[in-house]
């Protein structure tokens, strides 16, 4: 037995040596920075372009090593707080708040001006996505405004008029009902739907309501607007059948992923597809597809959801100065033109959406009617309202859970929203109770909220600086209810 165990030990030693020797060929004399990011095929090309850009600008040279295997949010969190996080951390919309809360992200405010990565370098409205707790936590490598893609040929085939550029909820519903009636033979199982899904955030906001109040101190889901939005979702799914249910989705495809939804759109199962510019990465594989762009349906306040991931620098990184050059690269022409060509997103620097290369890509004339409209949507795009008192992932999960309960007939829309509000406010109370710093901030904002409500009750304008919810900042200005300076 001891010979056997000794042999195994020897084998392990040899394997370790072989592993080390094989790694030596990958090492470089230059510093190597790790970038934890999604498994996007465009990343390799972006890194090669980055090396050229460093050389052209005579910046210090270093290498970027892609790490796709640790892009899961929980892995970023655990590795980060354990002191072994990647130098550059790519964060999805909801993740930045959690990672910032741990203190593991470097505050970029002092170096932002030097590297031209201040929030005003990118799209207006993104401040709330990159400025968290008064600190700049990252810079967006990509920006997206959610939109609908229309399969124009499908509308023509079923003799249906194309929807208007902006449409109301009633127009959307009427168009949807007419379309599915024309597209599906009576007496057979429905195969074609009007749209894959609708964004509940935009829908609720179009009615003048957000998940949180003006100061984001309380959840406000138990409101007539939120209940109405959810009741509409139920009706569109279960009564009008213009949106597929989970059962319908399973009937059409094996899973409800972005890829499968895109595939179903290409297979003419939907007239409209919810997406953003990144959807074109997959839709471009079907050059015969005749597309058009529309905004989400709205009540009295047209808007779309602004989504942006961001890349931050790990506070314990040994190469923070070098990492800042990588963020600066996102503002460069080389990077933005790469984004334009790959269609990975809308370029993070607005200027590039006015270029010919963006508006009329020479090799894709069939897309000339799309890109301008996608950029236009960014003017009505508002980022997610993320309360500092609850993680967005938690709030979204709770709302989603009760929404599904409503769709599964466990609760009515009213009951589901009342329970979701109760659960979210409970989480807020727990977080505030546990953190003295948060508590002080919360108390101040409660006072501001009381002031806002008193002013509104008196019919007086509200100072914009009192409002922290990005939606209400835009909404109050649009309604003429606010005074003072400030963007969304």
């Amino acid at each position: 037995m001891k010979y056997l165990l000794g042999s195994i030990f020897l084998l392990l030693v040899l394997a370790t040596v072989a592993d080390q020797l094989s790694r030596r060929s990958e090492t470089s004399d230059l510093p190597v920075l790790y970038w934890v990011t999604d498994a996007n095929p465009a990343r390799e090309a972006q890194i090669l372009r980055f090396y050229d850009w460093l050389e052209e600008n005579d910046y210090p040279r270093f290498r970027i090593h892609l790490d796709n295997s640790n892009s899961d949010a929980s892995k970023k969190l655990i590795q980060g707080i354990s002191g072994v996080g990647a130098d550059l951390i790519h964060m999805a919309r909801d993740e930045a708040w959690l990672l910032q809360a741990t203190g593991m992200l470097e505050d970029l405010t002092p170096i932002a001006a030097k590297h031209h990565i201040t929030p005003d370098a990118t799209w207006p409205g993104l401040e709330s996505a990159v400025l968290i707790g008064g600190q700049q936590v990252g810079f967006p490598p990509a920006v997206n405004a959610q939109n609908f893609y229309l399969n124009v040929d499908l509308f023509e085939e079923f003799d249906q008029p194309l929807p208007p550029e902006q449409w109301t909820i009633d127009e959307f519903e009427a168009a949807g009902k007419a379309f599915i009636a024309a597209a599906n033979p009576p007496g057979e199982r429905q195969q074609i739907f009007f749209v894959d899904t609708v964004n509940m955030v935009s829908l609720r906001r179009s009615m003048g309501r957000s998940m949180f109040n003006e100061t984001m101190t309380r959840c406000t889901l138990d409101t007539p607007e939120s209940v109405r939005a959810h009741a509409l979702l139920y009706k569109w799914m279960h009564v009008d059948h213009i949106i597929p249910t989970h059962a319908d989705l399973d009937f059409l495809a094996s899973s409800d992923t972005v890829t499968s939804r895109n595939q179903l759109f290409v297979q003419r199962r939907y007239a409209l597809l919810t997406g953003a510019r990144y959807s074109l990465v997959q839709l471009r594989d079907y050059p015969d597809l005749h597309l058009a762009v529309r905004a989400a349906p709205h009540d009295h306040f047209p808007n779309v959801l602004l989504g942006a991931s961001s890349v931050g620098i790990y506070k314990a990184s040994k190469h923070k100065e070098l990492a800042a050059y990588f963020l600066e690269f996102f503002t460069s022409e080389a990077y933005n033109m790469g984004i334009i060509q790959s269609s990975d997103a809308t370029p993070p620097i607005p200027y590039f959406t006015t270029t010919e290369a963006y508006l009329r890509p020479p090799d894709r004339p069939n897309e000339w009617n799309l890109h301008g409209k996608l950029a236009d949507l960014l003017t009505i795009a508002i980022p997610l309202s993320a309360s500092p008192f609850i993680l967005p992932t938690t709030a979204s999960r709770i709302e989603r859970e009760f929404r599904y309960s409503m769709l599964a007939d466990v609760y009515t829309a009213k009951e589901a929203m009342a329970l979701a509000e109760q659960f979210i406010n409970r989480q807020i109370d727990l977080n505030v109770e546990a953190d003295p710093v948060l508590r002080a901030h919360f108390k101040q904002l409660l006072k501001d909220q009381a002031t806002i409500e008193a002013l509104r009750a008196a019919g007086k304008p509200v100072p914009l600086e009192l409002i922290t919810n990005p939606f209400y900042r835009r909404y109050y200005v649009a309604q003429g209810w606010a005074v003072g300076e400030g963007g969304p």
Partner: protein
Amino acid sequence: MKYSPRQWRRLRSGLLFLVPNITGFMLFTLVPLVLSFVLAFTNWDVRRHNIFKTEQLEFIGFQNFERLFSHPAFWQYLGNTLFLMLGIPFAIGGSLVAALLLTGEGKKKPALRIALAIASGLLIFSLTTLLILGFEFSGIQVLIGLLFLSILTAGLIGGTTVYRTIFYAPHFTAGVATFLLWKKMYNPQTGPINNALSPILSTIENAFRFLPPASGLILGTLAILLAVLPLVLLHRKIVRARLDAEIGRGVLFGLTGASTIPLVLGWRWLDTSWQAPLLIVPALVSLGWVFFSSVRHRPFRMVPSRYGLMPFILPLCGAVSVSLISIGLSVVAIRLPGMAESGLNPPNWLADYHWAKPAIMIMAFWAAVGSNNMILYIAGLTNIPRELYDAADIDGASRLQRFWNVTWPQLAPVTFFISIMSVIHGLQGGFEMARTMTQGGPAGATTTLSYFVFIEGFETGRLGYASAVVWALFVLVMTVTLINFKFGNRYVND
């Protein structure tokens, strides 16, 4: 005690071999275990307590536990966990049946071979006939057909060894891979389960068109009466045990109290004015008889059963399960004509709030039948002395009597061990399934306590609170295990 140099050398070698294991256990099990216990009483939140923050960790006593027990979601997830555990008795039964089949207890090997040969021949004949008649097979049907044929052929050639390997396959297949496979199997449209169910449901649908309208009511009424029968039989057993002074009043009340579960649930599920009384009135009469008989009878001296409470708990579980299934069938039978009129569709297994949990249970049952439990039962069966069976044969025992009076009592320690391990796994489990197949949905229907720990620990970052959930779970596991130790039968009747 004095060791010789040789003994010292042997001791040293032994310890050296143990060092890696003990070190690993200390570092990765014992230390985290102790730490998690301490952390359960702290406010550790990774957002505020980590290497980048200076805020001190505070001991907050039992606050995490107070919060936990006042959290409505905790009770929902505990309910989900317990609901999924209802499959454990069936899984144990399935393992036992598999073990009995695989040990070939009481079967002659040539008979098995002949049966396999006939089955293979029938399968080939059926497939060929269908092909000749122009039946078009889909890819999955061909695959399943060939799979069955291969299994039967392998059984003919390799005998029970092949089947033991096949039955044990789920256990050494990676969990995530099997979950993904089941996800495909549950696909409402393309999955083989619904493909198999569709023609059956169509037949039922057509059958109800030709049956009189009252057929659903008749079937429903019969099913309700069937639901009462196991409860009455259970009550009779309890009364007999009381009259024989095997159980005291406490146990009597406990058992009869537990037997009212179907009545409570039946009251909720049965929605017509006559169905619920049809179930509840006879059951209450039976309960009244139990109390009347037991109150009158005061045994002079208790003579507890040597098997503990197991002879009562198992029939209780069986009676409650059969009764609940019958009530469910009754509900289905009564609604079936109406449902058949509008068309019967197979369930949307994983996406339907009401079907998601049963779907997970079915999969867990499949995995449990061919698990270590089956291996343990096989080992237990091979250890039963042949003389006991010979004696039973001489006494003229039937096959059922041989099982009930020889096999089952002899397997008591194995069953006891399997029960405890299954309950522990049941309470701790569900995370991988929920994460891979349903993400805890729909609407939290498949979120178990272990998944709740993950959400609290790694989504919200409250590791202190997550540790409290873990230790609450530990207390639950410990309590159930102690109850099992106290009342379960773990001794063989020599």
